[in-house]
């Protein structure tokens, strides 16, 4: 095995990096892949709670890097999916506790034992971001269809391209089809046109995401929810499967058109 190292980043905070990382990690493990999810948001760790593994943390990323434990001791194995592991971030330190070279070394160390290493990046473009991106083979940029998130995503696209990481791929998160229909939100086509990078998935806004993170059960485990399906589709595309982007009904129906015509 030689893992593909995938970094999930965004520039702006709060667009769903951790949710995306948790769900893609779960979905890849459900497809039978051996997956390690690494939280690099030192000081503000959250991947553990979103995955529902917060009660099982003994050691963390900084303990591994500083040699207080062996790497294997810090990995938490998921109880639902035996092929999924988490390496949590330290909560009491800051981003400078780890440097990009250490991240590259750590990832090289785990590479032979996994199919995928999924790295959750902190927000921003400083050291935390550089730590997360340094070992990446592929970079996924998460944005929401809002001006602030798209603008920050564009900064990251520029940085990733300058860093010779190969072209990053785009995930549009929390798209609200009804708002797009009413011309109150940027559409998938708009965001792709503005950022001019390849799209790997669109996740519709879905209350099930919050309910599932309340429980610590990522929504990709939920067979019925539209967002869970979207995450499983992205996981399939990461494996090279040819899955068309889920048709999220963005174009206006006859009724929508009529009501817009009358009401404005």
């Amino acid at each position, binding site marked *: 095995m030689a893992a593909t190292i995938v970094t999930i980043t965004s520039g702006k905070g709060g667009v769903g990096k951790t949710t995306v990382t948790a769900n893609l990690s779960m979905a890849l493990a459900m497809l039978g892949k051996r997956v390690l999810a690494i939280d690099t948001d030192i000081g503000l760790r959250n991947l553990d709670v979103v995955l529902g593994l917060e009660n099982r943390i003994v050691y963390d990323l900084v303990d591994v890097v500083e040699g207080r434990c062996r790497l294997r001791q810090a990995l938490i194995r998921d109880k639902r999916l035996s092929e999924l592991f988490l390496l949590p971030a330290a909560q009491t330190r800051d981003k400078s506790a780890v440097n990009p070279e250490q991240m590259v070394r750590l990832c090289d160390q785990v590479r032979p034992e996994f199919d995928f290493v999924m790295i959750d990046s902190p927000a921003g473009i400083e050291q935390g971001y550089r730590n997360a991106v340094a070992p990446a083979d592929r970079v996924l940029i998460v944005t929401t269809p809002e001006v602030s998130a*798209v603008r920050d995503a*564009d900064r990251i696209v520029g940085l990733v391209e300058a860093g010779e990481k190969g072209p990053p791929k785009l995930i549009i998160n929390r798209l609200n089809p009804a708002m797009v229909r009413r*011309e109150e*939100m*940027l559409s998938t086509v*708009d965001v792709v046109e*503005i950022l001019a990078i390849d799209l790997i998935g669109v996740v519709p806004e879905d209350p099930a995401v919050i309910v599932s993170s309340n429980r610590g059960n990522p929504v990709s485990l939920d067979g019925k929810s539209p967002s869970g399906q979207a995450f499983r589709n992205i996981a399939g595309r990461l494996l090279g499967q040819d899955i068309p982007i889920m048709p999220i009904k963005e174009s206006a129906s006859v009724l929508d058109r009529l009501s817009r015509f009358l*009401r*404005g």
Partner: protein
Amino acid sequence: MSFLDRLFGRREPTSRQMAKDRLQLVLVHDRINISPGMLDTMKDEMIKVISKYVEIDPDGVEVTFTQSKRQSRLTADIPVVGPVRRHPKKSSARATAVHGRAEVGGDG
């Protein structure tokens, strides 16, 4: 544009269109790291340089950045009025001196 809006003559772009337009404008400047103020300074300098060679209408000059994919393109639309009036006794060999004056005097 809704029926009622048209009836009352209101014309307002949708918020989706406004988001798109505003983003495209701000990203042009983000990507090349040139503020609108710097763009104006550059435009003034371009007018000065070009005026050494041809007479142009400085008020009609338009300098814009456009995007094609992630490639930025600088486009200048410069209305030309005619050739620079050269001093009748100057030979072409002394053109450099003429250009030098154009820079100082700014009137070609």
